[in-house]
Each structure stands twice: as C-alpha cells, then as structure tokens.
C-alpha cells in the first residue's frame, strides 16, 4: 500500500485515501485532431517500467488532484507536485536524476 504526501494539505496519505488517475501530463486532443493524435491521447500509454508521472486524487482527504513521480518497479517516490503543470517541475526532475542518473525526460 503506497504512501504519497499530498502537496496541498501536506498529509502523508495512504493508498486507501487516494484515487489513482493514470498517467500525468497528457495533452488533450479535441475535435479537429487527427485520428492518430486522438488515439494516442485516449489509449496509448507507454506503461513504463521505471520512472512514471501519474495522477492521484486525495479523494478521502482534501479532494485535490496532484501529480506524483514514482518508479513503477521499485515503488520509490521521487516527489509529488501540483496538478496545474504541463510538465514535471525542475526540482522533481532533479530529484529523479539524483536517484536515476541515466534517466532523461522523454
């Protein structure tokens, strides 16, 4: 059972307090987009083994969505941060690099 610290209310929340929301930083493609772009947005996930950015909602807490950087294989958590970003903030990237020198953002 995972633990994430909610960046809004500061609580180290247990998985049972949280709702998962899949991969983070997806770009939404709406009407007018190509079939390929829309398919990618809706369905295609790399399902990475290793560093992964994902959405969680503190649904049985403050109700806020937040994002987390986590290793899907070792379950190490590199940090949690605001959902109102389109890419991982610099300090999260630094924290990941410190632990995974070989990793680079896609």
């Amino acid at each position, binding site marked *: 059972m995972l633990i994430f610290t909610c960046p809004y209310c500061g609580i180290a929340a247990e998985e049972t307090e949280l709702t998962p929301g899949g991969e983070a930083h997806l770009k939404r493609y709406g*009407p007018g*987009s190509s079939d390929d772009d829309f398919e990618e947005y809706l369905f295609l996930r790399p399902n990475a083994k290793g560093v992964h950015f994902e*959405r969680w*909602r503190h649904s049985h807490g403050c109700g806020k*969505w937040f994002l987390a950087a986590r290793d899907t294989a070792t379950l190490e958590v590199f940090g949690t941060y605001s*959902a*109102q970003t389109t890419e991982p903030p610099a300090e999260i990237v630094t924290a990941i690099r410190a*632990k995974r020198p070989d990793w680079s953002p896609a």
Partner: protein
Amino acid sequence: MSSRLPQGGRLIDRSTRMAFTFNGTPMTGFRGDTLASALLANGQRLMGRSFKYHRPRGVVTSGAEEPNALVNLGRGDRLEPNQRATTTPLFDGLTARSQNHWPSLEYDIGEVNVALSRFLPAGFYYKTFIHPRVAWKHVFEPFIRQSAGLGKAPKKPDPDRYEHFYAHVDVVIAGAGMAGLQAALVAGRAGLNVLLCEQEGHAGGRLPVDGGMADADGWIEGTVAALAAMPNVTMRLNTQVSGVYDHGYVLAYERIADDAPGSDAPRHRLWRIRARHVIAATGALERPLSFAGNDKPGVMLASALRDYIVNYGVSAGDRTVIVTNNDDAYRTALAIKAAGLDVPCIVDARPEVTGDLPARARAAGIEVKTGMGIAEVRGRKGVTGVRLCRQAGSGVPVEEVACDAVAMSGGWSPVVHLWSHCGGKLTWDDAGAFFRPDHARPPTNQDGAGFVTCLGAADGALVTQDALSNADAMARQVVGALGVKPAAADLPETDSVAEAPLMPVWVMPHGAGPKKRAKMWLDFQNDVKVSDVQLAAQEGFESVEHTKRYTTLGMATDQGKLSNINGLAILAEARGAAIPDVGTTTFRPPYTPISMGAIAGEARGEIFQPLRRTPIHDWHAGRGAYWEPVGYWRRPYCFPQEDESHADAVAREIDATRNGVGLLDASTLGKIIVKGPDAGRFMDMLYTNMMSSLKPGRCRYGLMCNENGFLMDDGVVARLNDDTFLVHTTTGGADHVHAHMEDWLQCEWWDWQVFTANVTEAWAQIAVVGPKARTVLEKLGTGIDLSAEGLPFMAWAEGRIGGFDARVFRISFSGELSFEVAVPASQGLAFWEALMEAGGEFGITPYGTEALHVMRAEKGFIMIGDETDGTVIPQDLGLDWAISKKKDDYLGKRAHERSHMTDPERWKLVGLETVDGSVLPDGSYAIAEGENANGQRNTQGRVTSTYYSPTLGKGIAMGLVLNGPDRMGEVLTFNTTEVPERGGPPKTIEAQIVSPVFYDPEGEKQNV
C-alpha cells in the same frame, strides 16, 4: 508408539488436565499442550491422509510449517477445516476430526498404493482429462471433486467476533526468539517505538530446546521483563507477522480466543501496521531428507522430535533412529537419551563425523554409522524399522534396524518469507546449502531504501553465538538507519557449540533408482515425489514456477515450507544446473493461512458497508417498504400492503399515480452546484447539449459523456441564476459525476473560475406526480403560481409551499403532470407527511423505484445502467436532438467522430412488444441467421429493459437492434433460458419492433 514421558515438558502444566476428542474418541492432555503433542501423548500418531494418494500421515513438525496434521476443528457453526494440530492450543472440550479419508482414518478406500500411483504421475490432470471436452463437466470434474479437497467447509455463519487494530511504529519485529528479543532490546533501549510479535504463545523460540545458553529460560524471562518495562515497546504473543507490503505496510494476525470458543473476546485480530522498518527474526526451518518411505507416520523432523520431548514431555517413539547430514540432529539423539529412551543408531550420510556434538553422542553410548543412509522405511501405517545402505551407492540394504520412529534432518533453511514479500532478493549459501537474504538487494520503500532486515537464523546465522552477534549487529544498523544512536552493547554469555559443516544430501542414497525415487516424498501434503519433479524436468519444464504448477510441489496449505529447497535441488540436478541458477518460486503473503474472519474484521452484517438514508427513510421502513439497494442508499422498491405481492403493489402504485396522485422520494438523486463566472462554459463542455443558453428559472435535460464518447450520466439541469447551475445526476452517479467535474476543473481547465459542490444530502426532494399533483400542492397553500402558464413544463420556481421553503421543478420522468419539490433535508419528513395528509382525499399513494421504472419505460425514457452499459453513445439511443451541433467542443465530441461511433450498423434503440403480450426475458438476444467464428449463434439486438405495463395490460420492452428504427413492425426472434422439451429446439419468443414510446406519445398528460 508415541507416549507421554514421566517428567519434563517446560510448556505444560501437569496439574491441569484437558479433555478433548479426536474422531470421536475421548482423550486427555495438559494445559500448554498443542493438539499435536496431546495426540502423540495419547499414542495417536496417525493424524491424517495425504491429498492425492490418501496415504496415512503422521505429524512431521512441531510448528507452523506442518504439512500433514491438518484437522477439522470444532463443530457446527464453529467448524473450521485445515487447522494445523501443531499450532492449535489444546483446550478443554476441543473436538477434532481428521480429514481426507473415507470411511475412516484407519481404513481408507481411496488409498492408492505405490503400484497404482505410477498411473498418477506429475501433470496427471493435464494429461488425462483433456478429451473428450464434454466429459470434463460430466465425468472428470465430479469425480475429482468427490475425491479431492481437504477438510469440510462450515455451513453456518461464523458466530465469532473479529477486529482490526491499527498501529504506526518505528520498528515491527517478527519473532521473539533469541534474535528477536535481542533486536527488541537494542531498538527499545534506543527509544524507538517497537512492536514485537511472536507467533507462538511463548517467547524464546528454539533457544531453551537447542541449548547454547546456560540459563536460557532465565535470560528469556529477564529480557521479556525488561521489554515490558519499556513504555515504547509492545510485545504480542500468538501474533504472527503474516505479510509485508509496499511502503512498510505490515499485516499481523493475532489469535486471541481460539482456545476459548464462545468467550466475549474477539477470536482473531488483524493488525494493520505501518512500520518504518521491519525486522524479520523468523528463524529457520529444518528440511526433511528424501529417502524411500520418508512419509510414513513416525518419520519426523529431528528438531520436532526434541521439541516434543523438551517442551511437552512427549516422545514420538521408544526407539528412534536418527538420520542426518549435519551436527544439529545429534541434539535430538542426546535429548532422547536424556529422556531415558533408546537411540539404536545415528545414520550420518557424511563419510567422516568429528566435532563436539557427535563426540557427546558417542560418549552417551550411541552408535554413529557414518557414510550411511536409509534404503527403506519398514512398516505401513507406522515405522517398524529401517533398512540401511551406503549413502554413496544405489541402496542395497546392508542391515536392518528395528525402531518405531525416525528423526530426520537435512539441514536448515532461513525463513526469508518476509524479506521476499516485497521483492527482497536471495543469495545461495554454499556452506549451509540454503538461500539467505542478499543484503545488497533488499526490498525498498518510498525513499528507495531497504526497509526489511533479516537477522539471526533468518539471516543464515544458525549457531547460537553467531545468531546472537548477528542479531545485535543488524539491529544496531537498523537503529542507526532510523537516525538514533544505539546504546552500549549488552550481550548475554553463550556456551554455544561449534558445528561441523553439513553435507548436502538431496537424494538418499545418492544413486537411488527409479523405484526408490518414486517412494521419496518432497511435498507430503500434495504427494509430490522426487520422481515427479524429475519427470517434469524430462518433459521440458525448466522454469521453477512452471514445475511448481505442473507437479503441485509447494502448492499445498503449507506453501512448500518443507519441500521448497529439496524440490529445487532435484530440479537443478535433473536439469544439470546449479541451484541458484534454477532460483526459487515467489514467496507471497500470508506466511501461513489466516482466517477469513480476521480479514473481514468488523465489516460484516449491518456495518459491512455504510448505509445512506434519506430524511424519509424511517417513514418508508414504517410502511413496510421492500428495499432496493442503489449504491449505498436503500430506496423503496414498492410498498406492499398486507398480503399484496410485489407485482400487485407496483401495479397499484402506477394506477394510483396515473389516475390520481403519487409520491416518490427522489432525495437520492444527485444535486451538484456548479458556480462561477465560467460556469456556463464549463457546463457546455460537460454536457453534449448547450447549457450556457439556459435561462435562469428554466430546466433542461442533458446528457453527459466521457472523453471516450460513451454516455455516463443524464439528468435535468436547472439554472439558478446567471453564474449558478444546479446539476441533477442519477442516484448512483452523484459521486463520480462530481469527481469527474473536479478532475477536469483541477487538471485540464484549472484557469477557469468555477466551483462545484455536491449538495445531494442537503435537500430532500419529493416528486408529486399525477393528474391531481397540482391540486395537492395548492391545497397545502403556496405563493408560487403553479398553473400551466405560471410554471410551464421545464420551469422551476422558489417560494413557500405549506409553510416550507421549497424549490419546485416542473419536470417529469413518468409522463404525468409532475412537480419535483426540494425542501431542506431537515424538513423533508415533515413535508412528506404534510403532502400525505393533504393528498389523503385524492388517494395519494407513495410509490417505489419499480413503479418509477415501469412508468419511465412506458414513456420510452432511457435509464442509465439499463439502456447504457459503458459502450452506448447517445446516438444509439435516438438522442441526437440532445447533441449540440453548434458547439466547437464538449467531452466526447471528438470520440463521436471516430469511425466505429459513426458506423451505421450500430444497434439502436427501439421498443419491443411480444406477439403474445407476455414479458420478454431480461437480457435476451435477438437471434440472426448463421454462426460467428466461435460457433455461436449470430445476434442482431438485445433487450435492455423489460416490464409488465399495468397501464397497457401487456409486456413492454426496450432494446438495441441492428438498424432498429428502420425496421418498425418487423418481428424478431429472441432467445430464452427456458429449458427446452427433451430433444426439442431451444425455446424462443417473438417480439415486434415498435416505437419506444408506448404511452401518451404526444405528451398531453404532462403538459396540462
């Protein structure tokens, strides 16, 4: 023959006798006995039958790893199968029955002798029960079910109480043996918050039995007292750390009242622990040796044999042959001698035996036969003797020794389960011939740091002094890693004996032929032999995980605690690979089976899940409502009167509503406020239709799709004022629709100025429905103009009705004149009662969800969850009118453009009427010509809703049908589940495609 010794037994109290029965036979034991020790004391060595061959089996261990001595414990509603006699504390009145035999334990018809067992090789099921396919259902499976299966499942509800405890600690320590106690001292003195759990009912582990410390009992007692004096240390006996999970989540299983059935205490308790660090001081398990007949009652682990002598004052036999490949088993020989019984010889596979323990055995007059092994165990239901042979040869007997028990020791394996549960890796230790934790690859936590430490014997340090130093040093490391400086060392003196290295022996004798190998058991419970694993290897099973499943090695209730390493070694040898290259199977929690009651805890009966009640719930209950669960709510399905059937009640409720006035408690409908300068823009994205153009004071029915385009919810939106909308959702949809809104607002359109609030429970909402609805509301007295002009269809108004603060929505889900009135929840019941009183003269009738469903179906209104199932889009349901063409975007719009969504062949909504007026079976498919690729009949539609309509006096249904709207009047054939006549064709039913609006298609009734 096993028996109680005249003295000894450090755990039993000879002054307190306990009466119990085994297979109906009355027996007695002492307080402190386990069921296994008490049975042995009564001369009962035969305790069960094996799973596959029904072979007679006796107890082989003294602890949690026991594969054989499983019993049905208790009776009636307290019957529990597969209870290990070795971990069942004896109590007065205990009843136990052995398992897996018929007609009796002594004479079992299902017993398969070795000659027959060669027709039941590894993978027997996979090989034999393949063809013909139909035989599986009618022949093979019933046969297997009859003869397989351990124990009997209880038939009555569990009368006992269970509970969950929550704990947050710095360190949880599994095992209060010598290593665990020392670790607890180190961590406790460092001021850390420690939870020490011991699966047995006493601390100290093997130390008092195995020796190694002059005053073991004194040190244990002193240490337990010292820990008890520390406020930061909690110790629980009878509590097994059963599983380690991600990020330091740990489950422990406490057995509180197993020995006191019917007491007030909870029977079991599940500890849900968050620990910064887990210390596994779980010791080691002794391994059997693989020799012919090693499964016969009377062959036991050497350590178990001395446990029974030292702890319980029970001997397993009068003459015990020891067979070993290591020094440790000599302790058993010495214990037997000390108890005044015979050890005719020690059979040691090692060609040369020196060292301290063998010297002591020799000094005690015990003959040591070196380089020897057991060729065969004599006896059928119990050991009568052994034939000895050279370990190096093929097993030609050189002598026979009469005996009634055999103590075997193949070495020890550290218990690494808790290390492995979260992915800790193992390394092979050549000297000890076991897997131990690889310190470089521990299971890691959220910080990427190791969070489990094995210490003492669990880390591979098997000799007392080594184990103690290891435990102390490792515990200091843990304390340091948690940021605390450990106190000065304080280690007790040991007098531990150096031990000579063991010699790995996986098959005894080394050159045993196929006949012997087919009598060497690896997995005692599942009847897996050396020959089975070799056969699997021959047949190409290289992976240890595949071999496990093919042979069922290690798949019994003991999960391979005894058989694992021996089986791996055989597989490695057969493949010509090294043991570490073959690897182990995965250790998964729980360590031993835990009760379902403990897992459920308090969540049973009324508190299994929360129950949501509307303000009018108790009134419904008082009127005998028949409940329907809807999410966490209970809604009245109907209100049957006296002897009325549910169908009659529904018909009466509909009739009263269509011809007079009915009342529906609609409080469960979701009510969400969407407010802010960008509320209109947001509502346009949420709904397929245009909501921003809705005027204050008006209502609009809307459809909500997810980004995949599928219909997820529907409901009526009311615009409260310029920047505020009130969204009505389905009863089950309120929470996830609200979550859906928040998701888009927080994660996609976070710069939009919108707030949402779920106010579902703030309001009671009552639908007043029927031709007399207006009259009833007006009779209550209101300042709101409820006339057709003052409050037209799809309008809403705010004001007072009968002294209540109310919002009136002129909306209808029944096709009748209908007002949904919302009042503050606190006034809901009073308002309901006022309506009932005012409506009395018009025959006002409360109605339930079934009347609601029938009336909406008569009108052709869709129901989320009936007409939709997550694959249906609004266009399928003829709801194109509710999809805006003007909007650039809404959730689901892009998906609706996908080729599959625009496919003209999608099944579409129609009404269905059976030709004979009967009710179509729910879920029926309209069958089409031909078969699909799987040989199944093709279909061209399915029934989504089906009811008897009392208004129309016939069955009505809705369904999705291929090109349905273009096929009005056509008759389709639907399948049914009715049993056909013998040899006859499957029963079908015919129905005609009609408009889904069965009643008042012009809407004259609702627009009055």
